[in-house]
């Protein structure tokens, strides 16, 4: 009987396993950072304060740093380069959260750009970054940069916490119980002995055999259907971009 209790306790311990507590460590650190760098002065002072708080809160939930940068131009480079340099510099001086999603709004080019670093790179690959832009693109065109920035933060939070159905704990629990039921079911049904004869046991192969056999082709039918849209799911690989500081990231950008 002791074994039974052991199994049951082990079973419930496993339930608690996925609740790993590295969130608190991150939260303490994230409270100090600056998340809004409004070089192009797109936000009012009040908006800037609100946004700073909002990005901080969403970043805590998402477990990453969420940064919004605006500038009048990209320092004579590309927006990609601008963000990479910002990240490299922040990384070297330990001024930013290493797992980060950055958005840059370049007002000269009217270009918005997103890059994701660290563990965010896997969760938000190029394709997902592009989807995030979709979500706030209309706000951006209308010039509502504040709203666009909050939507950006919302979406980052959503994708960082998104767990595909096959990775959810309750799905695993159901699957595990199904396997358990099948295994036990087989054991119970086998406990009384199993059939160990089959159609070959009493078969006399010397006297049996095929006497007549025909395989006649009749006709062919052909149907066609359109190839489904490429729906390759987000891979963990990220985007394959690397900053000059050696930090790999994913990215997506668009003119507005």
């Amino acid at each position: 009987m002791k074994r039974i209790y052991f199994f049951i306790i082990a079973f419930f311990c496993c339930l608690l396993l996925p609740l790993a507590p590295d969130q608190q460590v991150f939260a303490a650190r994230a409270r100090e950072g600056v998340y809004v760098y409004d070089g192009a002065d797109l936000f009012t002072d009040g908006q800037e304060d609100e946004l700073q708080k909002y990005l901080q809160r969403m970043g805590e939930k998402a477990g990453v740093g969420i940064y919004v940068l605006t500038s009048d131009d990209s320092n004579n480079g590309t927006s990609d380069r601008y963000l990479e340099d910002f990240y490299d510099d922040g990384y070297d001086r330990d001024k930013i959260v290493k797992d980060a999603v950055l958005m840059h709004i370049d007002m000269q080019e009217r270009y918005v750009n997103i890059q994701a670093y660290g563990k965010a790179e896997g969760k938000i690959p190029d394709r997902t970054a592009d989807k995030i832009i979709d979500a706030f693109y209309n706000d951006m065109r209308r010039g509502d940069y504040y709203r666009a920035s909050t939507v950006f933060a919302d979406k980052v939070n959503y994708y960082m916490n998104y767990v595909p159905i096959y990775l959810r704990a309750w799905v695993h629990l159901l699957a595990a119980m199904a396997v358990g039921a099948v295994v036990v079911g087989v054991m119970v049904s086998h406990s009384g002995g199993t059939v160990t004869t089959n159609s070959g046991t009493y078969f006399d192969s010397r006297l049996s055999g095929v006497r007549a056999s025909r395989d006649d082709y009749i006709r062919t039918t052909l149907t066609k259907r359109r190839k489904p849209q490429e729906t390759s799911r987000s891979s963990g690989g990220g985007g394959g971009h690397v900053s000059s500081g050696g930090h790999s990231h994913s990215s997506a950008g668009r003119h507005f």
Partner: protein
Amino acid sequence: MIIQYKCPSCGADLQYDSKSKKLKCDSCGREMEVDDAAFDGTIPEGEGGNDAPNPDPFSANSIPDEAEFEEIEIEENQRSFKEGEGRQYNCNNCGAVVITTDDTTATTCSFCGAPVMLGDRLTGELAPARIIPFSINKEQAKEAFRKWCKNGRLTPKGFMTADRIKNITGMYVPFWLYDMGGTGEADCTATRVRSYTRGDYIYTETKYYHVYRRVNLAYRMVPVDASEKMNDTLMDLLEPFSYKDLKEFKMPYLAGYLAEKYNYNDRQLLPRVQQRVEGYADSYLRSTIHGYTTVTYNHKNINLQKINAYYTLLPVWMVCYDYRDSEHVFAMNGQTGKIVGKPPLSKGKIAAWFAGVSAGVFALLQVVTLLFFR
């Protein structure tokens, strides 16, 4: 007509010994070939009035263990009057009445323990054609059964350790072994499906074929249990028996064991074997059609007939086992040692296995998730 085999040296009763495959005398150790004994045995010793079959209207009452045979009793009563069976046999050694049912063909004298064969129930149309002698003796059977109990992963702990084998009986169960032969015919529409991509489209090409097969079918010695008492499912699970040990029937093989005669003749059991062999033929016929994606039968015809049926005695150890006031019956193949029968199951162990397997799989899934998807 009672038949007993006597030791030529000391006069004690001989028993079939599965190890030496000979008749053996327990008193002096003398052994005797089955063939020799069979020849001697046909002339029964001590010819006397006792051996003459005399109808006994009270035979049913003379069965001592009424509880056990309650159901059979009534039937026997009816049948014995009808067919004039229900007769009394007396032991040649001690003269005691040998306790038999109408089906018994071999047993031991309950008084002196001598193996007795009821010769008149083993001759004529009741003569078995073949027999597989026991190759597992009582001690080996007990040992194998104990081991099997211990290995039961779902059986309660007490069941595994307790030695509660109430009784273990070696019994020759009557079977019919059928040789079946015939033909099978199938007319099908089959398809081969192939998919390929060209441009923006996926093309599915389906080629249709008309498939025809005619096969010869032969199945050898398919066993069907011919005893009314025996559970058909249990007996089917005992298979397969290895026919390399199949012998021409001789009465001495029965010495020391229980044996019964068939309750159903080969014609009565033919539907059962036919149904079974048709299933086999079906899968054989299907196996001759391959290389297709789908096969649909338009017409199928399997025609199997009995070629031969051999009345055969097969060795079975019946084990009665008491556990928590209920009796569990197991059967062991007396040739191969395969054991069948529903053991008691422990709810706690079932729950433990379920929880254990589920927890293991769950933990594995979680670990894989943590390692590869975080």
